């Protein structure tokens, strides 16, 4: 009898059962929840903006952070390629607004920094002043000329270093010769008066001990820049023709020659090809409870960016909805307490503690009855979506903004390549 019992226990495990055991994944069972619980998902993907400060701003970048819940937090190339999206919102010759979804914040910031400081452009560097009898000092005039944006693709030019001769491949020459005749009223000198000299400098260099050979100018152009196909039809000129350079009174004159060279924003901000470039995270506004009637109207009135709208629900009842979350500038006006009475202050201290615990919904009913100008504060959740950036690029005119962004990405690639080749 005993031997029979032992045989029953020692059953042979079939191959199918072995395969099943191998492929068994606990997350496939019907009642095991997939993914992260909602409060952890909130922490992982959203920055919660409270009245005092944002929460969960630093992301958990460790790839195995949620491995016990079966969620893969890694951003490797495969899932980056799948999830990355770009949406262009608006694109003109000078401005561009686009959304980038799925990109880590460090990389987005790298693009912004490169756009501001490491993209090359052309700007006036050396100014040869022949005659300046205006009230603007030479150096102030030179400084102002340097800040004028020039429409010239820097990719067609080379850098000019100390030992190089200025030639048609690394210098652009402008001339400014304006006079205000005696008896005339005061006149303005605008950037439209900067004339491009495609054949190079016209000022003669002083040569020691008079030579009989050809007098040299300050640049050695071997061919006219006019002959380049890119400049044949579009002459090089300042981006904006109405920039005020100086003002001349009667009898005053300015005669100078300006040489523009290639440089990057790190050296001097005049070489930054963007007026500015910035990004913000995509805002998410959630109403935690139904806003009806008077509260709805108050909420709509309070928002300076008109994020909320009133929706008629029939039977004269009104409701507030979030109509334009994208316009939210996170001013937190909807989270701010109204005029605080002493009771309001005490309750707001209690609220701050409750918020730091992370759960406000259970306590919200009690707070809604608190005295204060706005008793619906706490019912609006202001959040920002991590990894979703609204980029704005304003170009100064030398290159269109989409070209600027592509160049910025290329520069980051080049940096990585340089590091890799240094290491190998």
């Amino acid at each position, binding site marked *: 009898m005993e031997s029979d019992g032992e045989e029953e226990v020692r059953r042979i495990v079939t191959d199918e059962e072995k395969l099943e055991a191998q492929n068994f994944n606990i997350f496939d069972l019907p009642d095991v929840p997939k993914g992260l619980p909602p409060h952890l998902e909130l922490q992982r993907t959203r920055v919660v903006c409270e009245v005092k400060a944002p929460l969960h701003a630093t992301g958990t970048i*460790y790839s195995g952070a949620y491995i016990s819940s079966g969620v893969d937090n890694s951003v490797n190339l495969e899932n980056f390629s799948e999830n990355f999206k*770009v949406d262009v919102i608006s694109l003109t010759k000078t401005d561009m607004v686009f959304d980038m979804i799925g990109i880590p914040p*460090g990389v987005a910031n790298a693009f912004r920094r490169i756009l501001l400081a490491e993209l090359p452009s052309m700007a006036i560097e050396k100014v040869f002043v022949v005659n300046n009898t205006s009230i603007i000092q030479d150096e102030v005039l030179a400084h102002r000329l340097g800040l004028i944006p020039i429409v010239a693709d820097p990719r067609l030019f080379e850098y000019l270093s100390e030992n190089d001769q200025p030639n048609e491949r690394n210098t652009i020459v402008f001339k400014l010769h304006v006079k205000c005749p005696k008896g005339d009223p005061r006149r303005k000198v605008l950037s439209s008066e900067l004339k491009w000299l495609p054949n190079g400098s016209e000022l003669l260099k002083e040569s020691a001990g008079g030579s009989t050979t050809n007098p040299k100018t300050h640049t050695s152009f071997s061919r006219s820049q006019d002959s380049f196909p890119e400049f044949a039809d579009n002459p090089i000129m300042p981006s904006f023709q109405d920039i005020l350079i100086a003002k001349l009174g009667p009898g005053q004159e300015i005669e100078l020659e300006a040489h523009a060279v290639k440089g990057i924003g790190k050296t001097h901000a005049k070489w930054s090809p963007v007026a500015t470039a910035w990004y913000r995270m995509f805002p998410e506004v959630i109403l935690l409870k139904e806003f009806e009637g008077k509260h709805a109207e108050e909420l709509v009135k309070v928002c300076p960016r008109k994020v909320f709208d009133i929706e008629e629900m029939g039977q004269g009842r009104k409701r507030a909805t979030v109509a334009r979350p994208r316009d939210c500038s996170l001013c937190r006006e909807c989270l701010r307490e109204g005029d605080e009475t002493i009771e309001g202050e005490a309750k707001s201290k209690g609220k701050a503690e409750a918020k730091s615990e992370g759960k406000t919904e259970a306590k919200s009913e009690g707070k809604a009855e608190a005295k204060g100008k706005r008793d619906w504060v706490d019912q609006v959740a202001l959040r920002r979506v991590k990894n979703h950036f609204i980029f704005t690029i304003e170009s100064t005119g030398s290159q269109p903004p*989409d070209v600027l962004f592509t160049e910025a990405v290329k520069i*980051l*690639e080049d940096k990585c390549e340089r*590091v890799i080749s240094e290491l*190998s």
Partner: protein
Amino acid sequence: MEHGSFKDNSHATFTLGEEDHTLANAVRFVLNQDPRVTVGAYTIPHPSLEKVNIRVQTTGDPAKEVFKDACQELMQMNRHVRSVFDKAVTEYKAEEERKVKKAAEELQRQRELFGSMDIESN
């Protein structure tokens, strides 16, 4: 420049010259995504000097390889960003052109409509 030890090549500090937060923070992110990395951090010893020290400590693999892999991955991510961006821009431009053409056609149709109406009234 790699500062490490000959015996244990899984821990090292890499000094990059002429770099700053731009590259270092981006690389740090990609580095920390790698499961082989236990420590991935960077520091800038002095803001006036353009030097970045990137510290990499791994679970056994040589730190140089892991760091190189991270840079490679960042490079490929950038290439992908560029291609997606270019596609989005060309699509947007095409869409805008379509809209402009449709608006022009609409205007033309309306002009013709009004033109024919004038003839009728006369």
